[in-house]
């Protein structure tokens, strides 16, 4: 049986909040908080219901015709649900975090309005059932994140916003051209009907390759693939919760998710392999991974280092899907979730250090573990996960990536993994070392740049609890990877659909 209301209601939870928030006066922060939190909670429940239903074999579908031959289509599949689940969980956490972070700052109404719109777009991207619908929400995401990037309103933020728009709008345009061209060739491209393009025969292969590249450029801008990554480090001027969301689930992840869709659900893995595009993807991913890590190593400030680390980490997803075989697929998909959890934790921590102690540079972090133990533990968990140490979730990703490389008979990928892990250690471990083992202001050496006492604990609870919970989730995702409903289980579910006839 097909239920149309559930995906629609999921979208509506965050979409309908937007006009309500805009209608409320700026000072009504209590109502706004209640509204935000209840919508976020409701969405987690609704996505949970859909996950449950999907395991029961239910299908959810909603469509109507926009113009002749073009449908707006919501279609729930396991891959989309993974992304929707990630976005709804992290929306909840980030909403809590943002309420604490932006306390007493101006323009909160504008912030939360566009924040909800941004999350609505990611849900739309997750549930989109064809390229047209995907494109719709992909562009909406660009629009809704611009006000968040320039939120602070000073010249640097405005410049970053302009650069961001230049990249993303051009990328969106490429995507539009590619989608229209596919549409002229084969009509509406519903995700999962990959025979459509394969059936065109070898005569169309040249054109399909060109279109793939056009679409890849369109998606690669958001996924920050080198050399299309220029906007990402600059966008760091946004407030911490925005950076967290941008890196963990919204923009960067939307691009990566789009590439997953493109390879598995539009072209199909076999066709992509046949066209020789998987190798190209693997090369781009490798370059991006190594380049991102190198640049991260060179950064002296915490947030830019995390930003370059994102560029590198997101490409693990692309690397995973470029390995032909189930293990590579599992690795790519599971990293989509794991990277989100770990990266959001790291950004929360960076925000906490900046908010409570005024720390922006890495060399100011000496001894912060004593002053802010929970935040520092969370940071350590995230960092170790990024390096790929068990039992944190990142280990699972790297393990499957390695197995995928063996399976796809691409042993050089393992060398890339080793190199990248070493680089990850090289830029994360010194931070962890500073946190715990270097004497700092907490030991009576020097002073914090700008200390504030914002709460009863080491920092205000609004900021602390989201940090801790995502850190715990990153460990649980690794420890309990074998249980049903874990990210790994979902990823295996998707992969089984892809490779079994």
């Amino acid at each position, binding site marked *: 049986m097909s239920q149309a209301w559930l995906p629609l209601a999921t979208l509506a939870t965050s979409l309908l909040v937007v006009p309500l928030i805009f209608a409320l006066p700026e000072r009504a922060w209590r109502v706004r908080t209640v509204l935000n939190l209840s919508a976020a909670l409701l969405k987690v429940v609704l996505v949970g219901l859909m996950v449950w239903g999907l395991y029961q074999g239910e299908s959810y579908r909603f469509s109507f015709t926009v113009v002749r031959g073009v449908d707006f289509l919501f279609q729930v599949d396991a891959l989309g649900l993974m992304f929707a689940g990630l976005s709804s969980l992290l929306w909840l956490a980030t909403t809590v975090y943002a309420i604490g972070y932006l306390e007493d700052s101006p323009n909160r109404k504008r912030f939360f309005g566009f924040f909800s719109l941004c999350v609505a777009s990611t849900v739309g991207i997750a549930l989109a059932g064809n390229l047209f619908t995907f494109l*719709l929400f992909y562009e909406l995401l660009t629009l809704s994140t611009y006000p968040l990037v320039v939120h602070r309103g000073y010249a640097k933020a405005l410049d970053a916003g302009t650069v961001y728009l230049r990249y993303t709008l051009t990328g969106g345009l490429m995507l539009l051209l590619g989608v229209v061209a596919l549409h002229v060739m084969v009509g509406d491209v519903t995700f999962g009907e990959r025979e459509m393009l394969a059936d065109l025969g070898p005569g169309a292969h040249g054109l399909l390759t060109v279109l793939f590249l056009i679409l890849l450029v369109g998606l690669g801008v958001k996924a920050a693939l080198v050399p299309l990554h220029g906007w990402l480090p600059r966008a760091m001027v946004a407030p911490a919760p925005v950076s967290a969301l941008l890196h963990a689930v919204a923009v960067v992840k939307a691009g990566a998710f789009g590439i997953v869709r493109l390879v598995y659900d539009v072209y199909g893995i076999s066709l992509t392999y046949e066209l020789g595009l998987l190798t190209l993807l693997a090369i781009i991913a490798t370059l991006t991974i190594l380049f991102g890590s190198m640049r991260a190593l060179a950064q002296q400030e915490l947030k830019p280092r995390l930003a370059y680390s994102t560029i590198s980490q997101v490409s693990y997803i692309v690397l995973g899907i470029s390995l032909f075989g189930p293990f590579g697929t599992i690795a790519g998909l599971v990293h989509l979730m794991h990277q989100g959890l770990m990266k959001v934790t790291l950004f929360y921590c960076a925000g906490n250090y900046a908010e409570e102690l005024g720390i922006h540079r890495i060399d100011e972090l000496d001894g912060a573990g004593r002053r802010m133990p929970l935040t520092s533990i969370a940071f350590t968990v995230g960092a170790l996960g990024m390096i790929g140490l068990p039992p944190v979730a990142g280990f699972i990703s790297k393990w499957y990536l390695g197995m995928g490389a063996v399976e796809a008979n691409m042993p050089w990928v393992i060398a890339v993994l080793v190199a990248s892990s070493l680089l990850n250690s090289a830029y994360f471990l010194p931070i962890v070392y500073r946190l715990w083992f270097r004497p700092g202001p907490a030991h009576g050496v020097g002073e914090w740049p700008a200390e504030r006492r914002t709460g009863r604990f080491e920092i205000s609870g609004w900021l602390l609890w989201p940090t801790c919970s995502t850190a715990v989730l990153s460990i649980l995702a690794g420890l309990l990877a074998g249980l049903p409903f874990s990210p790994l289980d979902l990823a295996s579910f998707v992969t089984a659909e892809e490779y079994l006839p």
Partner: protein
Amino acid sequence: MIARLGLLTPPATQPDALGTVLLVLVTPLVMGALAAIWRPRRGWPIAALALLPLASLMVLSQEVLASGGQAWLIELGTLTLHWRANGLTLLLLWLTQVVTLASVAYAPAYLRVEIGDQGEQRWLWPLQGLLLSSLSLIWLAADLLSLYIGLELMGLTAVGLMLLPGKVEALVAGMRYLLLALVGSLAFLLGVALLLGAWARLDLGGLAMAAEEGMVLWVAVALLSAGLLLKAAAFPLHAWLAPVHGSAWTPVSALHAALVVKGSFFIALQLWLVLVPAAHIAAWLVGAMGGGAVVWGGLLAWRATKLKDVVAWSTVSQLGYLLLGFSLMIGTAPQVAEVAWEGTWLQLVAHSLAKAGMFLATGNLIFSTGESHVKGLAGASCRMPLSLLSFGIASISLIGLPPSAGFTAKWLLLHAALEAGYWLWLAVLALGTLLGAAYIFRVFRYSFVEDAEPPEARRVPWSMELLALGLAMASLLLGLVAEWPLTLLRTAGGGA
């Protein structure tokens, strides 16, 4: 294509719906005259009374839809007027009524708070009524005489509306506009005279059959097109557009940009489809003019320092998309022409709604901040005024980002251009999108400046806010339900 225009519909034997058509044409005149006597001070009486023309249009729609397109012959002594109504006519009539209604309802509060006692306010109402009637006549007309009457009335009314503020700049701009309108009309009239002399008939359906390729036809088409494209502010005949808006009243600007320029475009496209339906090289040239308009208009809007100029130049750019339609509809394969046909009309509707909404929102912003320059918006988003939101929503459609009607129209035009293999047009559409984003986000960039002196803000009356928002939202949401207007286009004699 002629069938799509509804020109092949045989005239009704019993003129049953003629009364309704006349009602649609006359009601705005009467209401305008009444409003000149009892001048409205509030928006709501207008909204209530506007149900009258809307109701008559509703009846007409039902009659036309039931019969699948209608045509009328009206004998006036020795003259015979040909009128017709099909899905396209209805779509344009509805659009005209909705946009005019919004701008008329905007006027009372606008005059009260912004204009005070200046200018010839009494004349605003009958002129708006006359404009609505003349536009309706243009949509309905199926012969050159009716078209000429409609065109001339529309042009003169528009001049009159421009003159209303009574200031020197307004008079200068209005007189310049009058001169242009007269030159345009003269060229049009010469073209009509040539056609009349050669084939001794003025009805479009008949001319489509009778006209033969040749020097006369080409000179006539050139004269007609030159006159019309001048009035439609088509590139490179666009330079008059922005100065005209500079001193005009906001609701007048909205009407002009949204509807008046479209009237000339509609006539031009119709004449080409009737007279030279296979002239694909000439049509390609018009398309190239459109391409130039998209790029040049976008650049002008990008460089403009005044808010109203940004909006006005963006009209030039947007009209370029419509001109691209010429090259995609004339002398191309049927499947290309079909997609381009739908894309062009959707673009027209999208632009009308978005541009009217944007002009009203711009008026609100200028009123609220007291600044007419783009820079004056610095920090405007702090208070998140509704007008800025309306401006933003309307601009989504102008840039052509989803889910707006502008996006869906662009999708269709891209589709047609790809299918026809016009690669250059893809580049034009892409460049237009980027330039659109550039000039719109330049405005928004200023609005997000935080460290500027927060501007003194005047409260904008609710009716003005809501009307701007309503039009903008309509242009946004129409993109998702674009199938409705397009179905209307296909039904009632437009589907063949």
